[in-house]
């Protein structure tokens, strides 16, 4: 492999590891050093995402300053709250926290690009969890949740994107369905932990839920 090829490859890997041109992908097939550089960069990127996902409750701990347009803004947001039918459906605390967390990362549902096994493994290794799903994963990040770091994925299903949170330290005794923020969710027992699944597209299909729980190893 020529030095020029490696420099070109590393520029692209270091700049945009999820967006590699075809010639760089071909180069990686024959260059161990650049492949290692790619793996390192993907692992760094998983941490970068975690770092940039600043926990929002901390933003809100301090009282906001008075603002001239606060009334208008609250009016806009009130439209959403007015539709809060979830008040009719009491939820367990864990379900509520999962739904709140997912709402803070709602942009994850816009992801389209399927992640590579290396990207997914970087997240799983950080969390010390195994997740061998056949569903396409489009978002993978390790998130702080209830004092732990948990893998947070979005997978593509026939009904659209679905959030999957692997909660190794949260035991639930039985399948628990919930609705929150317009999302449908379910908490499922999985060995000594649990799995949370959330979707916009109605109830979580049994088959998908079973496939996901079966793919988790703590």
């Amino acid at each position, binding site marked *: 492999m020529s030095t020029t090829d490696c420099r070109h490859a590393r520029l692209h890997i270091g700049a945009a590891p999820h967006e590699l041109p075809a010639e760089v992908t071909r180069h990686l097939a024959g260059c161990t050093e650049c492949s290692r550089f790619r793996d390192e960069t993907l692992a760094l990127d998983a941490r970068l995402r975690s770092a940039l996902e600043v926990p929002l409750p901390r933003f809100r701990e301090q009282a906001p300053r008075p603002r001239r347009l606060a009334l208008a803004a609250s009016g806009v947001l009130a439209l*959403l709250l007015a539709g809060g039918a979830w008040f009719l459906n009491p939820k367990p605390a864990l379900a509520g926290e999962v739904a709140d967390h997912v709402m803070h990362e709602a942009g994850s549902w816009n992801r389209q690009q399927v992640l590579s096994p290396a990207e997914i493994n970087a997240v799983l290794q950080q969390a010390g969890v195994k997740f061998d799903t056949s569903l396409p994963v489009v978002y993978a990040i390790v998130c702080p949740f209830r004092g732990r770091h948990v893998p947070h994925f979005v997978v593509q299903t026939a009904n659209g994107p679905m959030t999957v949170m692997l909660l190794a330290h949260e035991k639930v005794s039985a399948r628990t369905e919930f609705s929150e923020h317009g999302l449908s969710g379910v908490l499922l027992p999985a060995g000594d932990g649990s799995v949370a699944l959330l979707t916009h597209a109605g109830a979580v299909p049994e088959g998908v839920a079973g496939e996901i729980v079966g793919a988790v190893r703590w």
Partner: protein
Amino acid sequence: MKPVSHGTSAGAAFTRLLEMLRPDLLRFACWLARDRSVAEDVVQETMIRAWKSREELKDPAAARPWLFTIVRREHARLYERKRLPLVDIESVEALGDPALATEADAGLLDLRRAIMQLPDEYREPLVLQVLGGFTTAEIASELQLTQAAVLTRLFRARNRLRTIYGLAPAEDVE
């Protein structure tokens, strides 16, 4: 994906879209401004401007980059209008900035500090890419740079962060 229409229910749908994306807009604004209060002001103005301009958004799938662009403009406008002082990076931690708040994971805290200390020209494209999901072509368009310039900036941004993550820095690119 259904197109955005603008009747009463569409207004509620648009509001819902804004609320869904608000957390990431707030994060983006915080990384731009490096100041929580400024970030909240920027996002508030963004929400109002987006609401007023909602008919410009034809495809809800494009809402995220559209709103990130408004955040950038509102951030620039705020500094222009109020002539806010530039943030002294050495004082950010002392201000108790949320991005540097107590974090159980010390490595993550170090990484946040390092991102915060990146020059604007490196930090902004990196945040657009990693948090905003922008492609390099979209970043180039947003920042009015060539794609080659964006690649270089992103490379150098990550290269500075590699050492924080315990990796050897890569050879720089020209």
